[in-house]
């Protein structure tokens, strides 16, 4: 399944990567220089390359938002293009198992995504090292590696979604639109919907001067639970915690328990790597779970479908 690499589509993605990498690295590089000026001894400066927002957005935000598009672009016509060009019936008449078709499609996509991500990360690191002159330590490399794996899984989830649509829908346009619709739904409407739902269940009255803290906390809790349904939230919480050792919890300040707040106030040092991982483990496991679930559904659908030439 080498066709991903020679297609114009891949060329387009590669161009995008180089552009994004260079823009982010230079943008962030400059702002890091400014930000770190006042600091006596900035720690883990290298990771700032990925999390610092610079003028517009950080790399982490960018992948969280547009990473799904890479998955969708690579997968939306995986199966139905073979159907439209009538090569699918020929393909499965060859002595291969039927599932190797769909496994191949998925694996080829995952490998492509991995190459794309490695390329971006290397571009940013390389340019960053040249611009700000920091060399990453072993811990930073590990954090970036974990970030890479999380991103790979997250984009693979979207690849799985789009391949699923390409199995279900006969027309490539329909499956592309359906995947895009889902992407928009998760990136905009879930967080919006979370706010609306929280307002409805635990309304905070704007008029009264005294606000009941119980209600505020309930409001926050509901909003958080709903927004966690979006893989985008899962992913961005997980990765920003991994990349930023100063972040000690994925929860907002309001939702912390008293002890947690106390420890936050007492210990100002960055978290060690295992601790960071421990915090985001549930997030990572959820991402793995939805990715596999998605591919599993896709697999079942494909295996059960009647293959007719007409």
């Amino acid at each position, binding site marked *: 399944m080498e*066709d991903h690499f*020679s*297609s114009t589509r891949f060329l387009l993605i590669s161009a995008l990567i180089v552009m994004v990498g260079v823009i982010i690295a230079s943008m962030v590089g400059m702002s890091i220089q400014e930000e770190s000026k006042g600091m006596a001894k900035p720690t883990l400066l290298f990771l700032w390359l990925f999390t610092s927002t610079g003028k517009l957005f950080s790399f982490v935000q960018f992948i969280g938002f547009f990473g799904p598009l890479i998955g969708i672009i690579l997968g939306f016509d995986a199966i139905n293009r*073979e159907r439209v*060009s*009538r*090569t*699918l*019936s*020929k*393909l*499965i*008449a*060859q*002595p*291969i*198992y039927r599932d190797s078709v769909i496994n191949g499609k998925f694996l080829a996509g995952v490998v492509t995504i991995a190459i794309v991500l490695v390329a971006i990360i290397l571009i940013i690191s390389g340019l960053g090292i040249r611009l700000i002159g920091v060399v990453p330590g072993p811990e930073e490399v590990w954090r970036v590696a974990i970030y890479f794996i999380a991103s790979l899984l997250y984009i693979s989830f979207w690849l799985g979604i789009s391949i699923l649509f390409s199995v279900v829908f006969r027309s490539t346009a329909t499956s592309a639109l359906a995947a895009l619709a889902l992407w928009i739904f998760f990136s905009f409407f879930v967080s919006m919907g979370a706010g609306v739902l929280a307002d409805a269940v635990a309304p905070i009255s704007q008029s009264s001067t005294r606000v009941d803290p119980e209600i505020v906390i309930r409001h926050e809790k509901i909003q958080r639970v709903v927004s966690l349904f979006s893989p985008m939230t899962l992913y961005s919480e997980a990765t920003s915690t991994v990349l930023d050792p100063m972040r000690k919890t994925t929860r907002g300040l309001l939702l912390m328990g008293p002890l947690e707040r106390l420890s936050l106030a007492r210990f100002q040092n960055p978290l060690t790597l295992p601790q960071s991982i421990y915090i985001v483990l549930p997030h990572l496991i959820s991402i793995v779970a939805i990715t596999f679930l998605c591919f599993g559904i896709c697999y079942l659908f494909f295996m059960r479908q*009647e*293959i*007719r*030439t*007409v």
Partner: protein
Amino acid sequence: MPCSFGWGDDKVRGQSIIETEKLTKRYGAQTAVNELDLKIWEGEVFGFLGPNGAGKTTTLLMFLGLTEPTSGKVNVCGFDPKRDPLRVKEKVGYLPENVGFYDDMDARQNLQFVARLNRIPDEISAPRIDSWLKEVGLLEEAEKKVGIYSKGMRQRLGIAEVMIKEPRLIFLDEPTIGLDPDGTNRMLDLIHSLSREKNITVFLSSHLLDQVQRICDRVGIMIKGNLVAVGPIEELAKKKLGLDKEHYTLEEIYMKYFKEA
């Protein structure tokens, strides 16, 4: 002058390559194929006829193990396509109607891709690809992208593609549709020579009855999921049109069966 290459009596044949016993496929309440009993002999050209939606393609898919029969037995090249679809697909070539190719690859790349799916090493497949491209008259166009091929060229490339794995049995679904008269003639000659010179069994499904009559040893007529007739064309003609008739066409026989069903 109608001609057929029938051997006459069924019992003096050699080996059978396809055997089915009460093969049935139902989609919900609808029966697509009803208790099909059929034997195809090694090396013959068998014409599989019937109106659209009679269950011909379903039968083909069951032979290839691409769809599961509801009940009954089927054996292709000594294997059960239900249990051993890969072994069957190694030995059987299938050319679907209006076959598709990867349009952004050239003819040679398309054939090489199929060869690789059949686990044929490149150094073995390369000369084979060239010789089949020559056989179907596409050697000069081998470097062109398949996207710009004409209908006839695609059909011929399809034949080459089916032959790459050197099958014992090939299924052809409307192989001559969309070909010009010269192309049709060459295609029919090619199919005939495959059967005669290489002892490849050809299972041909077509609506073009005059062509079927030209090259098929035996025909089977399927109507609404039932195999209503099977045998050499001469035999069917005797049975349906009377003993005295010398000049008959397959179309007359076919229409007679079709009206009775």
